[in-house]
């Protein structure tokens, strides 16, 4: 038993390095997607202190809107632009109709409100586009297809081109966000709001405007996530539950740290796949569903603020 837990998996790793590389790659891709969802959470939490439960459904909604518009006969690129517009309208509507009346309420109330938004978006999405899973339009968006096989380490590693594209696009987006945060006027305002709402208000930053921008940015992140995840599987409402996987990522990385979301996403993604592949069979498989949470739970006990999170968190 002890041999099976502590030695055998490592022996397997060394004996079949190609499988290890394959698992690592799968983990990385899953991690990138988790990181993208976590990024949406972090953006909103930083700027408005709202724990946005609706991020998962925003991913689905963005993907559905894109596919739905395309099915209605709109050219793919135009549909993409229109979807961006829809995400802006959504951000504006949420700020105006939900956040503004609830300003200065306890966090848990705002959390509850995002649950209301979730229900609303599920209903709206189903109402407009139907409840069935849809196929993401990969070709029309010039996303690559097929796989690359690499002969290495005495075996063969298969890498989907789409996954490479996902990783690259995610990297580009994070870089763009970093530039946006660091060197634009709005980015500076966003960081100011993240530091202190009151101080930001007192130097003339409009909180309402910032919230719209932040929710819009999170919507864009959701759109990219929706395209990527939708291309790997289908665009369906089941994705919403998968979005919960982003929560342990947040714990690892901290609720307020963008680099934390990315590093945490990768750790969770890789750890989950490795754990499932090498240790999962010992207990009957399927441990993917909770392994990440367990990692996060253990991690919490030793470092409650996360890898890069703010030191000031509520405890005891």
């Amino acid at each position: 038993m002890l041999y099976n837990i502590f030695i055998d998996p490592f022996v397997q790793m060394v004996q079949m390095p190609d499988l290890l590389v394959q698992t690592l790659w799968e983990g990385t891709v899953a991690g990138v997607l988790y990181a993208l969802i976590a990024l949406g959470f972090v953006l909103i939490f930083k700027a408005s202190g709202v724990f946005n439960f609706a991020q998962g459904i925003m991913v689905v909604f963005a993907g559905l809107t894109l596919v739905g518009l395309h099915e209605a006969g709109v050219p793919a690129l135009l549909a993409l632009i229109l979807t961006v517009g829809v995400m802006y309208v959504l951000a504006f509507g949420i700020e105006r109709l939900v956040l503004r009346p609830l300003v200065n309420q306890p966090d848990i109330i705002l959390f509850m409100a995002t649950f209301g938004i979730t229900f609303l978006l599920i209903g709206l999405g189903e109402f407009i586009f139907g409840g069935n899973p849809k196929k993401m339009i990969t070709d029309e968006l010039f996303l690559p297809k097929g796989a690359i096989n690499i002969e290495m380490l005495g075996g063969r590693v298969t890498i989907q081109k789409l996954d490479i594209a996902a990783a690259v696009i995610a990297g580009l987006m994070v870089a763009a966000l970093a530039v946006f945060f660091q060197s634009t006027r709005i980015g500076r305002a966003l960081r100011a709001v993240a530091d202190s709402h009151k101080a930001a208000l007192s130097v003339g930053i409009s909180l309402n405007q910032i919230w719209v921008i932040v929710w819009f940015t999170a919507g864009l992140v959701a759109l990219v996530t929706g395209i990527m995840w939708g291309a790997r599987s289908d665009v369906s409402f089941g994705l919403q539950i998968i979005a919960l996987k982003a929560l342990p990522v947040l714990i690892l990385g901290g609720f307020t740290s963008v680099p934390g979301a990315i590093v945490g996403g990768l750790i969770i993604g890789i750890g989950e796949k490795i754990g499932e592949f090498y240790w999962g069979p010992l207990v009957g498989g399927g441990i993917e569903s909770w392994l990440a949470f367990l990692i996060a739970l253990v991690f919490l006990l030793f470092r409650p603020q996360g890898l890069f999170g703010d030191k000031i968190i509520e405890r005891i």
Partner: protein
Amino acid sequence: MLYREAGLYKKTYEADMAVFPIRQDLIGVILIVAAAFVLPAFMSNFMIGTVLIPFLVFSLAAIGLNLLTGYTGLLSLGTGAFMGVGAYACYKLTTAFPGVNLIVWIIVSGFFSAAIGVLFGLPSLRIKGFYLAVATLAAQFFLEWCFVRIPWLYNYSVSGAIDVPNRTLFGIPIAGASATPLTRYYVILVILIAMTWIASNIVHGRIGRMWMAIRDMDIAAELMGIRPLQTKLLAFAVSSFYCGVAGAVMMFLWYGGGEAKDAFSINLSFNILFMVIIGGLGSIVGAFFGAALLHLVPIFLKFGLPAFGFPLAGATAEHLTHLLTGLLIIFFLIVEPHGLARLWATAKQKLRMWPFPY
């Protein structure tokens, strides 16, 4: 007019601090309880089975979670799993010892759930807020996995489902295929009333005040001599006990087995949490309001709208239900962020002063 304190003289401190400060409150509660016993006897099985029984079960679970989230201020997303622990514990116990009455095992299974709850409540000593919520999600997903992957829990049945055996109380079948909805309803009602009464006493007593002190400011509470460790774990234990009983009741007296696998999913946890929040954090009557709103609104939209002449196809009705439920949640939050219980309290206050505004 009717509801006012004129003519009520409180001569002792106890009378002033009573749960029902005004006599009409007490009369109202007695009337509601009496109605809960009498009216269902004239209702259809469908009404009892789809509306009343789930409402009672959800209320019980919501009271349990309210003790933890509302009174102690610890956010938990593991409610569904804790309910599941109760259901599976009850199932194992009643199949292992069929001679003992089911009611006994329903209550005992609450203790199993409490033990698991304390175990997963340990992180609450270091973290709180949303971090704790995510930590309790670990309990949710881990336990949910256990319910599927450990065949011992469902006695190695091929379908992986709990098969509710026939059980009787005083010779009347209360669980299994031969039990009528009405008897099951009465059993749940009695359990719910007893446990509500106990919960009300707990939160109005020393333990409840300890919990609220921890919630309001833990450092101050600690300085006053309240031990955070014991108090928080006690909250987890009592809350999980309630959830465990609710889960056992849900499986044995409502579902009757069947789709056990999906019953205790994360959605159930969220539903219960939102019943607590929208009903009113830190209010027992709020748990009932929340359960009523979140459970009855979808049912009303599904079955009520066609009756009012809005014929809807099955799928569309479901979509519309989601849409309207979301809208209602946001609407109620904006109207009164502190929940329906606060709305109720405001209304009562207005009545007390009527016809004067202040």
